[in-house]
């Protein structure tokens, strides 16, 4: 039996996460992940007007708000029989595009970068750049007055931490710059979304914000600033780190996991939805030299509850998923169900998308020796941000074009009233990966609501076949030479961009109880 360590809370993620790992001979031998908060978002929707769902499910997560709202609206679109006009789709996409850009930039600089740099190296900066010297003065000033919160305390920088003063100081400068840049990307989204966090204008059947040319012009001007930051700062930073000082971690493939990947597809480029920024697809057992993509078939999704606190049942498709807890199950250790595709655990997110898209920039890195894992996830995230930026320009053009044609529409008003009965599923690619919402309507009210989110795929516990979830599997073999300093563990977990408020939104409808996380 190795030494067990617990990291609770795992910080710089969305939500409340606890990670427990068993360490033997300086490496992770086994791992368990558990969320520690629940609100019951799906449960409270039962009996409500279905049109409330996009507004309420947006509040599942204040970081990736728009994609819950959108995926929920898509589930409703199907259930209501609504056909979203191309204008409505373009507006939804522009709002989503802004979300992607802000979200990925925030994740790299503010949620992850501190794991990879020794911030105190700024003191050794010898250059003469005025802006960078201001950063040096600032950090050194904080150290002098012994108040470097929230940048410290931290795990001790290890041999992989970047200590080169020039690289570190520019990263810290970009951390500060990106706070403003990401906020401006959210403001850009609000031009159509109404405001952020939590857009207002995505509803069943389309969109509520009737656009004018000034809005499009304003969006495009703000997009120029984002494009500049993404192309000239974010992508170069990630590539310089990944192929430079972090190359040993990239080559090692730290945090690889199962090598199974899933994408539901999202961000349409044409009215028929045939051409997408992120096409759907599945990879089982990746061979980087010969990537085989299977078509995605939603019927193959099941959720196992074998190691989760639910009443025992065979794995079920989300439409038929039950939400009855059984808190007395001794083998259970998570509130997250275990989604599986064709019985297998999958990884959702940017890495999955860049592999399934066979993105040439990303595959170029793979050729250079970057193995799928924590560093590759950061690279995939940066590379796909550019794809979204480019698509936003195209959508601006398409929108201007559509607006000038007669019969321009943003909403399917004929299908605004809820059907007596119906069901619908919405699929999309959230910044964090494959997102699905399922709704059943009875007597014009919500009868059942279920969401399977990217972090459910990634953070899932074991299933009936005892396959570990993707977080757990990717921790196996991760070097932890000093159990008091498990910096590699948080690097791996944060590379997924966890969103635990998303993953855990179920509760026991009977007893309203939740049990403490206990590892036997």
């Amino acid at each position, binding site marked *: 039996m190795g030494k067990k360590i617990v990291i609770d809370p795992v910080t710089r993620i969305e939500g409340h996460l606890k990670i427990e790992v068993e360490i033997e001979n300086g490496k992770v031998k086994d791992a368990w992940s558990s969320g520690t908060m629940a609100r019951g978002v799906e449960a409270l929707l039962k009996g409500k007007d279905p049109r409330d769902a996009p507004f309420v499910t947006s509040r599942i997560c204040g970081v990736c708000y728009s994609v819950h709202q959108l995926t929920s609206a898509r589930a409703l679109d199907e259930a209501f029989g609504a056909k979203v006009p191309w204008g409505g789709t373009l507006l939804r996409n522009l709002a989503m595009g802004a979300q992607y850009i802000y979200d990925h930039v925030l994740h790299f600089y503010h949620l992850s970068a501190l794991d990879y740099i020794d911030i105190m190296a700024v003191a050794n900066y010898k250059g003469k750049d005025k802006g960078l010297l*201001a950063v040096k003065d600032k950090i050194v000033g904080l150290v002098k007055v012994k108040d470097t919160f929230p940048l410290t305390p931290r795990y001790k920088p290890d041999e992989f931490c970047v200590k080169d003063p020039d690289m570190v100081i520019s990263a810290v400068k970009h951390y500060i710059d990106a706070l403003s840049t990401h906020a401006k990307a959210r403001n850009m989204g609000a031009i159509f979304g109404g405001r952020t966090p939590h857009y207002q204008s995505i509803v069943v059947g389309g969109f509520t914000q009737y656009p004018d040319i000034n809005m499009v012009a304003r969006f495009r001007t703000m997009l120029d600033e984002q494009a500049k930051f993404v192309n000239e700062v974010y992508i170069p930073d990630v590539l310089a780190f990944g192929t430079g000082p972090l190359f040993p971690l990239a080559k090692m493939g730290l945090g690889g996991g199962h090598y199974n990947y899933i994408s539901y597809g999202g961000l349409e480029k044409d009215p028929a939805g045939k051409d997408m920024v992120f096409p759907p697809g599945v990879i089982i057992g990746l061979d980087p030299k010969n990537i085989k993509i299977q078509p995605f078939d939603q019927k193959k999704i099941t959720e196992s509850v074998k190691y989760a606190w639910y009443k025992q049942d065979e794995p079920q498709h989300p439409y038929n998923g039950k939400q009855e807890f059984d808190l007395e199950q001794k083998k259970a250790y998570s509130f997250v169900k275990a989604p599986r595709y064709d019985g297998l655990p999958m990884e959702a997110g940017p890495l999955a998308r860049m592999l399934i898209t066979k993105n040439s920039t990303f595959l170029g890195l793979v050729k250079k020796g970057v193995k799928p894992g924590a560093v590759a996830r950061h690279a995939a995230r940066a590379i796909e941000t550019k794809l979204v930026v480019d698509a936003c320009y195209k959508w601006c053009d398409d929108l201007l074009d559509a607006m000038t044609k007669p019969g321009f529409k943003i909403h399917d008003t004929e299908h605004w009233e809820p059907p007596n009965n119906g069901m619908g599923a919405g699929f999309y690619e959230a910044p964090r990966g494959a997102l699905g919402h399922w709704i059943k309507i009875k007597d014009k009210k919500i009868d059942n609501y279920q969401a399977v989110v990217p972090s459910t795929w990634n953070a899932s516990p074991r299933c009936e076949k005892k396959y570990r979830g993707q977080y757990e599997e990717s921790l196996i073999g991760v070097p932890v030479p000093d159990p008091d300093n498990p910096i590699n563990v948080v690097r791996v977990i944060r590379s997924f961009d966890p969103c635990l408020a998303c993953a855990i939104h179920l509760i026991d409808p009977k007893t309203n109880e939740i049990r403490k996380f206990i590892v036997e």
Partner: protein
Amino acid sequence: MGEAQKNLDRELEFHGISRREFIKYCAATAAVLGLSELELTTKIAHALEAAAKKPPVIWLEGQDCAGCTISFTGALNPPAASIILDKLSIRYHETIMAAAGHLSESVYHDTVKQGGYVLIVEGSIPSTDDRFCMMGGRPFREIVEEAAKKAAAIIAVGACATYGGIPAAGPTKGIGLDKALPGKAVINLSTCPVHTDHLVGTILYFLSTGKVPPLDEIGRPKAYFEQSIHDNCRRRSYFDEDTFLKDWNDPTQRDWCLYEKGCKGPDTYSDCAIRRWNDGINFCIDCGAGCQACASPDFYAGMTPLYTAESERSQNIMARKKAGLIPKKEKV
């Protein structure tokens, strides 16, 4: 030029803000908070003088979605970086801090022991069972109660932490600080999520005056929550004339009143209609979606169904309109 002014200029340069922009922001904040412009600028300049005196902050997240945190990081004037590094000493904030696990817990305990910090709470507290929200193996409720004891000021941010918000409508029956900390003085910044300006303005006010801003009877700063959305709504004359938007596709209806799409503006008190959101770019009513009264204590349960005029709230608005209790706006 005094030392404080020099420091201020250096800070502005670091953040790439022109002095003019800064003064403009101070003027706006000062007016809203009832301070003279000079008073506020001087006070902020003095507050910047000694970094060692930055007030410690503990920011706790309970049953939340991190939306209020994201709203906070969206501050541009002054920028969030300046607030995080220069104005406050953020000891504990799960989404921002470098530390994790036992390191983060130890900072929390040290700060609580020391006392005198600003406590900011985001997210509700489950009232049916503590185990719905645990942190570091302890109930979130206990942590909030403990942290509240030695706090110099307590700010509840967002609908959940103030009055329960969406979790209040769910089976965990989330409660806000009004119920979780009875009798404690709490500054309530409702709206879902907290408005960036409301939070930043309240923090700056506290930093510059050392005082809590004047509050209304439910603990919200009067400066932000005294006026009704309806009084300042640009669609108001259409409400007065019963001209309600029916079709979002029709550009001629674009500015019509959103009452029939579920807007609860006449019953909601917040300055959104003047201040708007995201640096003034847009807000709920201007984007055609209507106000869902997220600043109100009974949000969300009291507002559903959101997108029709069938809710009790909407019916009540219409009844009062018909009874002449919602006066028409004088035509200019």
